Protein backbone atom coordinates (compact mmCIF):
# COMPACT_ATOMS: atom_id res chain seq x y z
CA UNK A 1 0.00 0.00 0.00
CA UNK A 2 2.78 2.37 0.95
CA UNK A 3 4.43 1.51 -2.35
CA UNK A 4 1.30 2.44 -4.26
CA UNK A 5 0.87 5.78 -2.50
CA UNK A 6 4.52 6.55 -3.08
CA UNK A 7 4.14 5.73 -6.77
CA UNK A 8 0.99 7.85 -7.00
CA UNK A 9 2.71 10.82 -5.40
CA UNK A 10 5.79 10.71 -7.60
CA UNK A 11 3.60 10.09 -10.62
CA UNK A 12 1.59 13.22 -9.93
CA UNK A 13 4.69 15.32 -9.27
CA UNK A 14 6.55 14.29 -12.41
CA UNK A 15 3.28 14.31 -14.36
CA UNK A 16 3.03 18.04 -13.69
CA UNK A 17 6.42 18.60 -15.30
CA UNK A 18 5.46 16.60 -18.37
CA UNK A 19 2.18 18.50 -18.59
CA UNK A 20 4.18 21.70 -18.87
CA UNK A 21 6.23 20.39 -21.79
CA UNK A 22 3.27 18.69 -23.48
CA UNK A 23 0.94 21.70 -23.24
CA UNK A 24 3.30 23.70 -25.47
CA UNK A 25 3.38 20.89 -28.01
CA UNK A 26 -0.38 20.43 -28.08
CA UNK A 27 -1.02 24.20 -28.37
CA UNK A 28 1.34 24.41 -31.32
CA UNK A 29 -0.39 21.50 -33.01
CA UNK A 30 -3.83 22.92 -32.36
CA UNK A 31 -3.19 26.35 -33.82
CA UNK A 32 -0.50 25.81 -36.45
CA UNK A 33 -1.36 22.25 -37.51
CA UNK A 34 2.26 21.22 -37.35
CA UNK A 35 3.89 18.46 -35.34
CA UNK A 36 6.75 20.11 -33.52
CA UNK A 37 9.12 17.16 -33.24
CA UNK A 38 11.78 19.65 -32.15
CA UNK A 39 9.96 20.16 -28.83
CA UNK A 40 12.18 17.49 -27.24
CA UNK A 41 15.41 19.23 -28.17
CA UNK A 42 13.91 22.65 -27.29
CA UNK A 43 13.22 21.33 -23.80
CA UNK A 44 16.83 20.21 -23.58
CA UNK A 45 17.98 23.57 -24.95
CA UNK A 46 16.00 25.26 -22.18
CA UNK A 47 17.65 23.02 -19.63
CA UNK A 48 21.10 23.84 -21.02
CA UNK A 49 20.36 27.57 -20.96
CA UNK A 50 19.48 27.35 -17.27
CA UNK A 51 22.60 25.26 -16.77
CA UNK A 52 24.83 27.80 -18.50
CA UNK A 53 23.33 30.73 -16.54
CA UNK A 54 23.77 28.80 -13.34
CA UNK A 55 27.33 27.69 -14.03
CA UNK A 56 28.76 30.89 -15.45
CA UNK A 57 26.71 33.70 -13.97
CA UNK A 58 25.56 31.89 -10.80
CA UNK A 59 21.95 32.77 -11.44
CA UNK A 60 19.47 30.66 -9.55
CA UNK A 61 17.77 28.14 -11.80
CA UNK A 62 14.21 29.20 -10.91
CA UNK A 63 15.01 32.93 -11.21
CA UNK A 64 16.90 32.16 -14.42
CA UNK A 65 13.57 31.34 -16.04
CA UNK A 66 12.93 35.09 -16.16
CA UNK A 67 15.79 35.21 -18.65
CA UNK A 68 15.51 31.86 -20.43
CA UNK A 69 11.77 32.00 -21.10
CA UNK A 70 11.90 35.35 -22.95
CA UNK A 71 14.98 34.19 -24.84
CA UNK A 72 13.24 31.00 -25.93
CA UNK A 73 10.11 33.02 -26.76
CA UNK A 74 12.21 35.10 -29.14
CA UNK A 75 13.79 31.97 -30.58
CA UNK A 76 10.30 30.59 -31.19
CA UNK A 77 9.28 33.76 -33.02
CA UNK A 78 12.44 33.45 -35.13
CA UNK A 79 11.87 29.81 -36.06
CA UNK A 80 8.23 30.48 -36.91
CA UNK A 81 9.14 33.45 -39.07
CA UNK A 82 12.03 31.78 -40.86
CA UNK A 83 10.64 28.31 -41.55
CA UNK A 84 7.11 27.49 -40.47
CA UNK A 85 5.51 30.48 -42.16
CA UNK A 86 6.80 29.13 -45.47
CA UNK A 87 4.94 25.82 -45.20
CA UNK A 88 1.82 25.69 -47.33
CA UNK A 89 -1.63 24.99 -45.92
CA UNK A 90 -2.31 21.73 -47.72
CA UNK A 91 -2.37 18.00 -47.31
CA UNK A 92 1.38 17.61 -47.05
CA UNK A 93 1.72 20.25 -44.31
CA UNK A 94 1.88 17.89 -41.37
CA UNK A 95 4.55 15.64 -42.82
CA UNK A 96 6.61 18.53 -44.15
CA UNK A 97 6.41 20.15 -40.74
CA UNK A 98 7.76 16.96 -39.19
CA UNK A 99 10.72 17.06 -41.56
CA UNK A 100 11.42 20.77 -41.09
CA UNK A 101 11.24 20.53 -37.32
CA UNK A 102 13.38 17.40 -37.38
CA UNK A 103 16.02 19.22 -39.40
CA UNK A 104 15.93 22.10 -36.90
CA UNK A 105 16.20 19.58 -34.08
CA UNK A 106 19.28 18.06 -35.73
CA UNK A 107 20.94 21.47 -35.98
CA UNK A 108 20.19 22.34 -32.35
CA UNK A 109 21.41 18.92 -31.24
CA UNK A 110 24.63 19.39 -33.16
CA UNK A 111 25.19 22.84 -31.68
CA UNK A 112 24.46 21.61 -28.13
CA UNK A 113 26.86 18.71 -28.57
CA UNK A 114 29.53 21.14 -29.78
CA UNK A 115 29.11 23.59 -26.91
CA UNK A 116 28.27 21.35 -23.98
CA UNK A 117 29.77 17.98 -25.10
CA UNK A 118 27.62 14.86 -24.82
CA UNK A 119 28.47 14.36 -21.12
CA UNK A 120 25.45 13.98 -18.86
CA UNK A 121 24.77 16.96 -16.58
CA UNK A 122 22.05 18.02 -14.17
CA UNK A 123 20.82 21.28 -12.66
CA UNK A 124 21.64 22.13 -9.06
CA UNK A 125 20.48 24.48 -6.35
CA UNK A 126 21.22 24.14 -2.67
CA UNK A 127 17.67 24.40 -1.40
CA UNK A 128 16.37 21.55 -3.54
CA UNK A 129 18.76 18.83 -2.44
CA UNK A 130 16.77 17.87 0.66
CA UNK A 131 13.45 16.09 1.07
CA UNK A 132 10.39 16.78 3.16
CA UNK A 133 9.20 13.92 5.30
CA UNK A 134 5.43 13.41 5.11
CA UNK A 135 4.36 10.53 7.31
CA UNK A 136 6.56 7.66 6.24
CA UNK A 137 7.36 9.16 2.82
CA UNK A 138 9.98 11.57 1.67
CA UNK A 139 9.06 14.17 -0.90
CA UNK A 140 12.17 15.40 -2.70
CA UNK A 141 11.99 19.20 -2.65
CA UNK A 142 13.11 19.51 -6.25
CA UNK A 143 10.00 17.67 -7.42
CA UNK A 144 7.75 19.77 -5.22
CA UNK A 145 9.25 23.05 -6.45
CA UNK A 146 9.05 21.93 -10.06
CA UNK A 147 5.47 20.85 -9.53
CA UNK A 148 4.57 24.23 -8.07
CA UNK A 149 6.25 25.91 -11.02
CA UNK A 150 4.19 23.78 -13.40
CA UNK A 151 0.97 24.63 -11.59
CA UNK A 152 1.73 28.34 -11.71
CA UNK A 153 2.61 28.34 -15.39
CA UNK A 154 -0.27 26.08 -16.39
CA UNK A 155 -2.71 28.29 -14.50
CA UNK A 156 -1.26 31.30 -16.27
CA UNK A 157 -1.63 29.51 -19.59
CA UNK A 158 -5.21 28.62 -18.73
CA UNK A 159 -6.04 32.26 -18.06
CA UNK A 160 -4.28 33.35 -21.22
CA UNK A 161 -6.20 30.89 -23.37
CA UNK A 162 -9.62 31.11 -21.75
CA UNK A 163 -9.83 34.59 -20.23
CA UNK A 164 -8.06 37.03 -22.54
CA UNK A 165 -8.71 38.60 -25.91
CA UNK A 166 -5.66 36.83 -27.29
CA UNK A 167 -7.05 33.56 -25.95
CA UNK A 168 -10.29 34.06 -27.87
CA UNK A 169 -8.33 34.63 -31.07
CA UNK A 170 -6.20 31.59 -30.33
CA UNK A 171 -9.16 29.30 -29.78
CA UNK A 172 -10.92 30.66 -32.83
CA UNK A 173 -7.86 30.00 -34.99
CA UNK A 174 -7.73 26.50 -33.54
CA UNK A 175 -11.35 25.74 -34.38
CA UNK A 176 -11.41 27.10 -37.89
CA UNK A 177 -8.56 28.97 -39.44
CA UNK A 178 -10.46 30.38 -42.40
CA UNK A 179 -13.45 31.48 -40.37
CA UNK A 180 -11.14 33.15 -37.86
CA UNK A 181 -9.48 35.08 -40.69
CA UNK A 182 -12.88 36.08 -42.00
CA UNK A 183 -13.94 37.64 -38.74
CA UNK A 184 -10.79 39.71 -38.70
CA UNK A 185 -8.39 37.76 -36.55
CA UNK A 186 -4.77 38.06 -37.60
CA UNK A 187 -4.17 34.32 -37.68
CA UNK A 188 -0.53 34.65 -38.72
CA UNK A 189 0.24 36.79 -35.70
CA UNK A 190 -1.67 34.42 -33.43
CA UNK A 191 0.23 31.49 -34.91
CA UNK A 192 3.60 33.13 -34.39
CA UNK A 193 2.84 34.03 -30.77
CA UNK A 194 1.39 30.59 -30.05
CA UNK A 195 4.49 28.91 -31.38
CA UNK A 196 6.68 31.20 -29.31
CA UNK A 197 4.62 30.47 -26.19
CA UNK A 198 5.03 26.76 -26.83
CA UNK A 199 8.79 27.18 -27.09
CA UNK A 200 8.89 29.35 -23.95
CA UNK A 201 6.98 26.64 -22.07
CA UNK A 202 9.64 24.21 -23.29
CA UNK A 203 12.22 26.40 -21.54
CA UNK A 204 10.39 26.11 -18.23
CA UNK A 205 9.76 22.42 -18.75
CA UNK A 206 13.41 21.98 -19.59
CA UNK A 207 14.47 23.62 -16.34
CA UNK A 208 12.21 21.29 -14.35
CA UNK A 209 13.33 18.29 -16.38
CA UNK A 210 16.98 19.21 -15.96
CA UNK A 211 16.60 19.59 -12.22
CA UNK A 212 15.05 16.14 -11.86
CA UNK A 213 17.07 14.17 -14.44
CA UNK A 214 20.53 13.75 -15.84
CA UNK A 215 20.43 14.95 -19.41
CA UNK A 216 22.39 15.50 -22.60
CA UNK A 217 21.33 16.42 -26.12
CA UNK A 218 20.45 12.80 -26.92
CA UNK A 219 17.84 12.73 -24.13
CA UNK A 220 15.59 14.62 -26.52
CA UNK A 221 14.67 11.45 -28.44
CA UNK A 222 13.22 9.75 -25.39
CA UNK A 223 11.48 12.98 -24.39
CA UNK A 224 9.85 13.69 -27.72
CA UNK A 225 8.49 10.17 -28.08
CA UNK A 226 6.92 10.45 -24.62
CA UNK A 227 5.53 13.90 -25.32
CA UNK A 228 4.02 12.85 -28.64
CA UNK A 229 2.40 9.88 -26.98
CA UNK A 230 1.00 12.15 -24.27
CA UNK A 231 -0.61 14.60 -26.65
CA UNK A 232 -2.03 11.84 -28.84
CA UNK A 233 -3.45 10.14 -25.78
CA UNK A 234 -4.97 13.40 -24.56
CA UNK A 235 -6.25 14.32 -27.98
CA UNK A 236 -4.20 16.49 -30.33
CA UNK A 237 -4.72 20.17 -29.58
CA UNK A 238 -6.44 19.69 -26.24
CA UNK A 239 -4.84 21.39 -23.23
CA UNK A 240 -6.97 19.47 -20.74
CA UNK A 241 -6.05 16.28 -22.57
CA UNK A 242 -2.34 17.04 -22.27
CA UNK A 243 -2.69 17.59 -18.54
CA UNK A 244 -4.66 14.42 -17.81
CA UNK A 245 -2.59 12.29 -20.17
CA UNK A 246 0.67 13.45 -18.55
CA UNK A 247 -0.59 12.60 -15.09
CA UNK A 248 -2.03 9.30 -16.32
CA UNK A 249 1.13 8.29 -18.10
CA UNK A 250 3.47 9.06 -15.24
CA UNK A 251 1.21 7.48 -12.62
CA UNK A 252 0.86 4.29 -14.65
CA UNK A 253 4.60 4.18 -15.30
CA UNK A 254 5.43 4.68 -11.63
CA UNK A 255 2.86 2.14 -10.49
CA UNK A 256 4.23 -0.41 -12.94
CA UNK A 257 7.74 0.33 -11.75
CA UNK A 258 6.95 -0.26 -8.10
CA UNK A 259 4.65 -3.25 -8.62
CA UNK A 260 6.38 -5.06 -11.45
CA UNK A 261 9.75 -3.63 -12.41
CA UNK A 262 11.10 -0.50 -14.05
CA UNK A 263 11.83 -2.23 -17.35
CA UNK A 264 8.11 -2.77 -17.92
CA UNK A 265 7.08 0.82 -17.15
CA UNK A 266 7.01 2.19 -20.67
CA UNK A 267 5.84 -1.10 -22.20
CA UNK A 268 2.68 -1.16 -20.11
CA UNK A 269 2.02 2.43 -20.94
CA UNK A 270 2.51 2.03 -24.68
CA UNK A 271 0.31 -1.07 -24.73
CA UNK A 272 -2.44 0.81 -22.89
CA UNK A 273 -2.08 3.70 -25.32
CA UNK A 274 -2.45 1.46 -28.36
CA UNK A 275 -5.42 -0.29 -26.73
CA UNK A 276 -7.12 3.01 -25.98
CA UNK A 277 -6.56 4.41 -29.46
CA UNK A 278 -8.25 1.39 -30.98
CA UNK A 279 -11.48 2.37 -29.27
CA UNK A 280 -10.98 6.13 -29.26
CA UNK A 281 -8.76 7.10 -32.19
CA UNK A 282 -9.15 10.81 -31.39
CA UNK A 283 -7.66 10.42 -27.90
CA UNK A 284 -9.26 11.21 -24.56
CA UNK A 285 -10.37 14.79 -25.18
CA UNK A 286 -9.80 15.18 -28.89
CA UNK A 287 -12.38 15.81 -31.55
CA UNK A 288 -12.75 13.68 -34.66
CA UNK A 289 -11.14 15.40 -37.59
CA UNK A 290 -14.08 15.15 -39.98
CA UNK A 291 -13.16 13.70 -43.34
CA UNK A 292 -9.58 14.82 -43.32
CA UNK A 293 -7.27 11.88 -43.59
Amino acid sequence: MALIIDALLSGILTGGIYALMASGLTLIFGVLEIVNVAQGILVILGAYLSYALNQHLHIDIFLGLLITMPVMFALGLGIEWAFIRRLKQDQSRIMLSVLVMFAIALIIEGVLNLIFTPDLVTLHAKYIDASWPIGSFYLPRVYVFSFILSIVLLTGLYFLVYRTQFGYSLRASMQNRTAAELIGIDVRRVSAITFAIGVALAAAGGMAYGATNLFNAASSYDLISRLLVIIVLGGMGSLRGALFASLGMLIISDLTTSLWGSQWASTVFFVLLVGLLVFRPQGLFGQLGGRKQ
Partner: protein
Amino acid sequence: MKRFRAFGLLALLVLVIVFPVLIPDPGFDSIAIYTLLYAAAVTGWNLFSGYSGYISLGYSSFTGIGAYTLALICTHWQIPGGYIPFLLLPVAGLVAGIFAIPMGWVALRTRRVTFVVVTIAMMFVLQALAFNLSGFTSGSSGIIFPITLWSGDFYNIPYYYVSLVLLLLAIAISWWIRNSKYGLGLLAIRDDEDRALGLGVRTWAFKLSAYVISAFLGGMVGAMFAYYGGSIFPASAFDPVVNLSVALMGFLGGVGTLVGPIVGAFLLEPFQQYLTIQYGSVGLNLIILGSLLLLIILVLPGGIVPALHSLWLKRMASRGAISQVSHAMEQEEGMLLESAEGKRGNR
Protein backbone atom coordinates in the same frame (compact mmCIF):
# COMPACT_ATOMS: atom_id res chain seq x y z
CA MET B 1 13.05 9.33 -75.83
CA LYS B 2 11.73 5.97 -74.75
CA ARG B 3 14.83 4.26 -76.12
CA PHE B 4 17.01 6.82 -74.37
CA ARG B 5 15.35 6.03 -71.05
CA ALA B 6 15.77 2.29 -71.53
CA PHE B 7 19.45 2.76 -72.35
CA GLY B 8 19.91 4.96 -69.33
CA LEU B 9 18.36 2.42 -67.02
CA LEU B 10 20.39 -0.39 -68.54
CA ALA B 11 23.62 1.58 -68.18
CA LEU B 12 22.76 2.35 -64.56
CA LEU B 13 22.06 -1.31 -63.85
CA VAL B 14 25.37 -2.38 -65.44
CA LEU B 15 27.19 0.29 -63.42
CA VAL B 16 25.60 -0.94 -60.21
CA ILE B 17 26.46 -4.56 -61.06
CA VAL B 18 30.13 -3.95 -61.85
CA PHE B 19 30.62 -1.38 -59.04
CA PRO B 20 32.33 -3.70 -56.53
CA VAL B 21 34.62 -5.02 -59.29
CA LEU B 22 35.57 -1.51 -60.40
CA ILE B 23 36.07 -0.20 -56.88
CA PRO B 24 37.24 -3.06 -54.69
CA ASP B 25 37.81 -0.78 -51.69
CA PRO B 26 36.04 -2.31 -48.66
CA GLY B 27 35.14 1.08 -47.22
CA PHE B 28 33.35 2.18 -50.38
CA ASP B 29 31.71 -1.20 -50.78
CA SER B 30 30.31 -1.11 -47.28
CA ILE B 31 28.79 2.32 -47.92
CA ALA B 32 27.40 0.95 -51.18
CA ILE B 33 25.84 -2.03 -49.39
CA TYR B 34 24.15 0.19 -46.83
CA THR B 35 22.95 2.46 -49.62
CA LEU B 36 21.40 -0.44 -51.53
CA LEU B 37 19.77 -1.75 -48.36
CA TYR B 38 18.38 1.65 -47.48
CA ALA B 39 17.07 2.06 -51.01
CA ALA B 40 15.28 -1.29 -50.66
CA ALA B 41 13.94 -0.30 -47.23
CA VAL B 42 12.65 3.06 -48.45
CA THR B 43 11.04 1.41 -51.47
CA GLY B 44 9.32 -1.04 -49.12
CA TRP B 45 8.23 1.81 -46.84
CA ASN B 46 7.00 3.81 -49.79
CA LEU B 47 4.79 1.09 -51.23
CA PHE B 48 2.64 1.34 -48.17
CA SER B 49 3.22 4.81 -46.72
CA GLY B 50 3.84 6.59 -49.99
CA TYR B 51 1.02 5.08 -52.01
CA SER B 52 -1.64 5.00 -49.30
CA GLY B 53 -0.63 8.24 -47.56
CA TYR B 54 -0.44 6.59 -44.15
CA ILE B 55 2.96 7.88 -43.07
CA SER B 56 4.64 5.34 -40.81
CA LEU B 57 7.47 6.42 -38.54
CA GLY B 58 7.92 2.90 -37.19
CA TYR B 59 9.44 1.05 -40.09
CA SER B 60 12.23 -0.30 -37.92
CA SER B 61 9.59 -2.46 -36.19
CA PHE B 62 9.77 -4.66 -39.24
CA THR B 63 13.48 -4.43 -39.94
CA GLY B 64 13.99 -5.30 -36.27
CA ILE B 65 11.67 -8.30 -36.34
CA GLY B 66 13.42 -9.55 -39.46
CA ALA B 67 16.82 -9.08 -37.87
CA TYR B 68 15.82 -10.93 -34.70
CA THR B 69 14.21 -13.73 -36.71
CA LEU B 70 17.38 -14.40 -38.66
CA ALA B 71 19.58 -14.09 -35.58
CA LEU B 72 17.42 -16.48 -33.55
CA ILE B 73 17.22 -19.03 -36.37
CA CYS B 74 21.00 -18.93 -36.80
CA THR B 75 21.74 -19.43 -33.10
CA HIS B 76 18.99 -21.98 -32.33
CA TRP B 77 19.72 -24.27 -35.25
CA GLN B 78 23.45 -23.54 -35.23
CA ILE B 79 23.54 -22.45 -38.81
CA PRO B 80 27.10 -21.68 -39.95
CA GLY B 81 27.94 -18.33 -41.50
CA GLY B 82 28.33 -18.05 -45.24
CA TYR B 83 25.61 -18.36 -47.84
CA ILE B 84 22.90 -20.21 -45.91
CA PRO B 85 21.64 -17.17 -43.93
CA PHE B 86 21.01 -15.45 -47.26
CA LEU B 87 18.58 -18.23 -48.14
CA LEU B 88 16.76 -17.64 -44.86
CA LEU B 89 16.04 -13.98 -45.64
CA PRO B 90 12.55 -14.76 -47.01
CA VAL B 91 11.74 -16.48 -43.71
CA ALA B 92 12.69 -13.30 -41.85
CA GLY B 93 10.46 -11.37 -44.23
CA LEU B 94 7.57 -13.76 -43.69
CA VAL B 95 7.80 -13.52 -39.92
CA ALA B 96 7.79 -9.71 -40.15
CA GLY B 97 4.78 -9.97 -42.45
CA ILE B 98 2.93 -12.19 -39.99
CA PHE B 99 3.66 -9.77 -37.14
CA ALA B 100 2.37 -6.96 -39.33
CA ILE B 101 -1.13 -8.46 -39.50
CA PRO B 102 -2.17 -7.80 -35.87
CA MET B 103 -0.07 -4.62 -35.74
CA GLY B 104 -1.73 -3.27 -38.85
CA TRP B 105 -5.10 -4.41 -37.56
CA VAL B 106 -4.68 -2.10 -34.59
CA ALA B 107 -2.70 0.76 -36.15
CA LEU B 108 -4.83 1.16 -39.25
CA ARG B 109 -7.88 1.98 -37.21
CA THR B 110 -6.30 5.39 -36.70
CA ARG B 111 -5.45 8.03 -39.26
CA ARG B 112 -3.04 10.87 -39.90
CA VAL B 113 -0.96 12.00 -36.95
CA THR B 114 -2.44 9.41 -34.62
CA PHE B 115 -1.30 6.70 -37.00
CA VAL B 116 2.21 8.17 -37.02
CA VAL B 117 2.38 8.11 -33.23
CA VAL B 118 0.89 4.62 -32.98
CA THR B 119 3.60 3.29 -35.30
CA ILE B 120 6.27 4.96 -33.15
CA ALA B 121 4.70 3.54 -29.98
CA MET B 122 4.59 0.04 -31.43
CA MET B 123 8.25 0.21 -32.26
CA PHE B 124 9.06 1.14 -28.68
CA VAL B 125 6.89 -1.74 -27.42
CA LEU B 126 8.85 -4.15 -29.60
CA GLN B 127 12.14 -2.65 -28.46
CA ALA B 128 11.10 -3.05 -24.82
CA LEU B 129 10.03 -6.64 -25.48
CA ALA B 130 13.40 -7.38 -27.07
CA PHE B 131 15.04 -6.00 -23.91
CA ASN B 132 12.73 -7.71 -21.45
CA LEU B 133 12.14 -11.17 -22.91
CA SER B 134 15.79 -11.86 -22.26
CA GLY B 135 15.31 -15.64 -22.08
CA PHE B 136 14.36 -15.58 -25.73
CA THR B 137 16.23 -12.65 -27.22
CA SER B 138 19.09 -12.59 -24.67
CA GLY B 139 18.11 -9.01 -23.84
CA SER B 140 20.64 -6.24 -23.75
CA SER B 141 23.60 -8.58 -24.32
CA GLY B 142 22.39 -9.06 -27.87
CA ILE B 143 22.99 -11.86 -30.33
CA ILE B 144 26.15 -12.41 -32.36
CA PHE B 145 25.75 -13.85 -35.83
CA PRO B 146 27.84 -16.86 -36.90
CA ILE B 147 31.18 -15.79 -38.31
CA THR B 148 31.67 -15.91 -42.03
CA LEU B 149 35.06 -17.09 -43.23
CA TRP B 150 35.49 -15.09 -46.38
CA SER B 151 38.77 -13.44 -47.22
CA GLY B 152 39.10 -9.68 -46.90
CA ASP B 153 38.80 -8.69 -50.55
CA PHE B 154 35.93 -11.03 -51.27
CA TYR B 155 34.03 -10.45 -48.02
CA ASN B 156 31.73 -7.67 -49.19
CA ILE B 157 30.94 -9.13 -52.60
CA PRO B 158 28.18 -11.63 -51.63
CA TYR B 159 26.54 -9.09 -49.33
CA TYR B 160 26.60 -6.54 -52.11
CA TYR B 161 24.88 -8.72 -54.66
CA VAL B 162 22.29 -10.06 -52.23
CA SER B 163 21.47 -6.46 -51.27
CA LEU B 164 21.18 -5.62 -54.95
CA VAL B 165 18.78 -8.54 -55.46
CA LEU B 166 16.71 -7.30 -52.51
CA LEU B 167 16.56 -3.83 -54.02
CA LEU B 168 15.54 -5.18 -57.42
CA LEU B 169 12.85 -7.30 -55.77
CA ALA B 170 11.55 -4.28 -53.88
CA ILE B 171 11.49 -2.19 -57.07
CA ALA B 172 9.70 -4.98 -58.93
CA ILE B 173 6.99 -5.25 -56.27
CA SER B 174 6.66 -1.49 -56.06
CA TRP B 175 6.46 -1.21 -59.85
CA TRP B 176 3.83 -3.93 -60.04
CA ILE B 177 1.70 -2.25 -57.38
CA ARG B 178 2.11 1.14 -59.04
CA ASN B 179 0.86 -0.19 -62.34
CA SER B 180 -1.99 -2.33 -61.08
CA LYS B 181 -5.55 -1.68 -60.10
CA TYR B 182 -4.48 -2.52 -56.57
CA GLY B 183 -2.04 0.41 -56.57
CA LEU B 184 -4.71 2.67 -57.99
CA GLY B 185 -6.89 1.73 -55.03
CA LEU B 186 -4.09 2.64 -52.63
CA LEU B 187 -3.64 6.02 -54.31
CA ALA B 188 -7.37 6.57 -54.03
CA ILE B 189 -7.06 5.95 -50.30
CA ARG B 190 -4.28 8.54 -50.15
CA ASP B 191 -6.36 11.15 -51.93
CA ASP B 192 -9.67 10.63 -50.13
CA GLU B 193 -10.21 7.47 -48.15
CA ASP B 194 -13.91 7.88 -47.44
CA ARG B 195 -14.70 8.62 -51.05
CA ALA B 196 -12.61 5.64 -52.15
CA LEU B 197 -14.63 3.45 -49.81
CA GLY B 198 -17.82 4.88 -51.21
CA LEU B 199 -16.66 4.12 -54.74
CA GLY B 200 -16.16 0.47 -53.87
CA VAL B 201 -12.46 0.25 -52.97
CA ARG B 202 -12.12 -2.30 -50.20
CA THR B 203 -9.98 0.13 -48.26
CA TRP B 204 -9.44 -2.04 -45.20
CA ALA B 205 -8.15 -5.03 -47.17
CA PHE B 206 -6.04 -2.79 -49.39
CA LYS B 207 -4.40 -0.97 -46.50
CA LEU B 208 -3.72 -4.07 -44.45
CA SER B 209 -2.30 -6.06 -47.36
CA ALA B 210 -0.02 -3.20 -48.40
CA TYR B 211 1.11 -2.87 -44.79
CA VAL B 212 1.98 -6.58 -44.74
CA ILE B 213 3.84 -6.49 -48.06
CA SER B 214 5.78 -3.48 -46.84
CA ALA B 215 6.62 -5.36 -43.63
CA PHE B 216 7.76 -8.40 -45.62
CA LEU B 217 10.33 -6.32 -47.51
CA GLY B 218 11.34 -4.56 -44.30
CA GLY B 219 11.92 -7.89 -42.56
CA MET B 220 14.24 -9.10 -45.29
CA VAL B 221 16.18 -5.84 -45.43
CA GLY B 222 16.47 -5.72 -41.64
CA ALA B 223 17.79 -9.29 -41.50
CA MET B 224 20.36 -8.34 -44.10
CA PHE B 225 21.37 -5.18 -42.19
CA ALA B 226 21.92 -7.23 -39.06
CA TYR B 227 23.71 -10.10 -40.78
CA TYR B 228 26.10 -7.69 -42.47
CA GLY B 229 26.65 -5.86 -39.19
CA GLY B 230 27.41 -9.15 -37.45
CA SER B 231 25.50 -8.60 -34.23
CA ILE B 232 22.15 -7.36 -33.00
CA PHE B 233 20.94 -5.49 -29.91
CA PRO B 234 17.47 -4.25 -28.98
CA ALA B 235 18.45 -0.61 -29.43
CA SER B 236 20.08 -1.16 -32.82
CA ALA B 237 17.38 -3.47 -34.16
CA PHE B 238 14.50 -1.17 -33.21
CA ASP B 239 16.21 2.13 -33.90
CA PRO B 240 14.23 5.42 -34.04
CA VAL B 241 16.97 6.89 -36.24
CA VAL B 242 16.22 4.26 -38.89
CA ASN B 243 12.51 5.20 -38.75
CA LEU B 244 13.37 8.81 -39.43
CA SER B 245 16.05 8.13 -42.04
CA VAL B 246 13.68 5.97 -44.06
CA ALA B 247 10.96 8.62 -44.02
CA LEU B 248 13.46 11.41 -44.77
CA MET B 249 14.87 9.58 -47.79
CA GLY B 250 11.37 8.95 -49.03
CA PHE B 251 10.41 12.59 -48.71
CA LEU B 252 13.67 13.79 -50.18
CA GLY B 253 13.23 11.71 -53.31
CA GLY B 254 9.48 12.09 -53.56
CA VAL B 255 6.84 10.15 -51.68
CA GLY B 256 4.53 7.93 -53.68
CA THR B 257 6.76 7.84 -56.75
CA LEU B 258 8.54 4.75 -57.99
CA VAL B 259 12.06 6.10 -58.31
CA GLY B 260 11.88 8.79 -55.61
CA PRO B 261 12.79 6.48 -52.73
CA ILE B 262 15.80 5.14 -54.63
CA VAL B 263 17.01 8.63 -55.51
CA GLY B 264 16.53 9.72 -51.90
CA ALA B 265 18.47 6.78 -50.50
CA PHE B 266 21.26 7.02 -53.08
CA LEU B 267 21.78 10.69 -52.25
CA LEU B 268 21.26 10.77 -48.52
CA GLU B 269 22.89 7.57 -47.27
CA PRO B 270 26.35 8.06 -48.84
CA PHE B 271 26.22 11.73 -47.86
CA GLN B 272 25.34 10.86 -44.28
CA GLN B 273 28.16 8.31 -44.12
CA TYR B 274 30.58 10.82 -45.62
CA LEU B 275 29.57 13.48 -43.11
CA THR B 276 29.97 11.08 -40.21
CA ILE B 277 33.43 10.03 -41.38
CA GLN B 278 34.57 13.54 -42.27
CA TYR B 279 33.02 15.66 -39.51
CA GLY B 280 31.73 13.12 -36.99
CA SER B 281 34.70 13.61 -34.69
CA VAL B 282 34.22 17.39 -34.60
CA GLY B 283 30.46 17.04 -34.20
CA LEU B 284 29.61 19.17 -37.20
CA ASN B 285 27.88 16.37 -39.10
CA LEU B 286 24.46 16.92 -37.50
CA ILE B 287 24.57 20.66 -38.14
CA ILE B 288 25.51 20.27 -41.80
CA LEU B 289 22.96 17.51 -42.36
CA GLY B 290 20.20 19.47 -40.68
CA SER B 291 20.91 22.66 -42.59
CA LEU B 292 21.01 20.82 -45.88
CA LEU B 293 17.73 19.03 -45.16
CA LEU B 294 16.12 22.32 -44.24
CA LEU B 295 17.29 23.85 -47.49
CA ILE B 296 16.03 20.95 -49.60
CA ILE B 297 12.64 20.81 -47.89
CA LEU B 298 12.06 24.53 -48.24
CA VAL B 299 13.25 24.70 -51.84
CA LEU B 300 11.73 21.41 -53.06
CA PRO B 301 8.82 20.62 -50.75
CA GLY B 302 7.51 17.85 -53.00
CA GLY B 303 10.80 15.98 -53.24
CA ILE B 304 13.47 15.81 -55.94
CA VAL B 305 11.77 13.53 -58.45
CA PRO B 306 8.44 15.40 -58.70
CA ALA B 307 10.36 18.70 -58.97
CA LEU B 308 12.52 17.38 -61.82
CA HIS B 309 9.44 15.95 -63.43
CA SER B 310 7.58 19.24 -63.53
CA LEU B 311 10.72 20.97 -64.80
CA TRP B 312 10.88 18.40 -67.59
CA LEU B 313 7.22 18.89 -68.46
CA LYS B 314 7.75 22.66 -68.63
CA ARG B 315 10.68 22.24 -70.99
CA MET B 316 8.71 19.88 -73.19
CA ALA B 317 5.77 22.25 -73.21
CA SER B 318 7.87 25.18 -74.42
CA ARG B 319 9.36 22.99 -77.11
CA GLY B 320 5.93 21.63 -78.05
CA ALA B 321 4.77 25.10 -78.98
CA ILE B 322 7.16 25.06 -81.92
CA SER B 323 5.99 21.97 -83.75
CA GLN B 324 2.83 19.93 -83.71
CA VAL B 325 4.62 16.62 -84.27
CA SER B 326 6.74 16.91 -81.19
CA HIS B 327 3.62 18.04 -79.35
CA ALA B 328 2.02 14.65 -79.91
CA MET B 329 5.23 12.93 -78.86
CA GLU B 330 5.53 15.00 -75.76
CA GLN B 331 1.98 14.21 -74.77
CA GLU B 332 2.76 10.54 -74.95
CA GLU B 333 5.97 11.16 -73.04
CA GLY B 334 4.17 13.22 -70.43
CA MET B 335 1.65 10.49 -69.84
CA LEU B 336 4.38 7.90 -69.59
CA LEU B 337 6.28 10.04 -67.13
CA GLU B 338 3.17 10.74 -65.12
CA SER B 339 2.38 7.10 -64.78
CA ALA B 340 5.95 6.51 -63.69
CA GLU B 341 6.24 9.42 -61.31
CA GLY B 342 3.08 8.93 -59.36
CA LYS B 343 0.94 11.74 -60.69
CA ARG B 344 -1.67 9.53 -62.30
CA GLY B 345 -3.55 9.01 -59.08
CA ASN B 346 -4.21 12.70 -58.77
CA ARG B 347 -6.27 12.86 -61.94
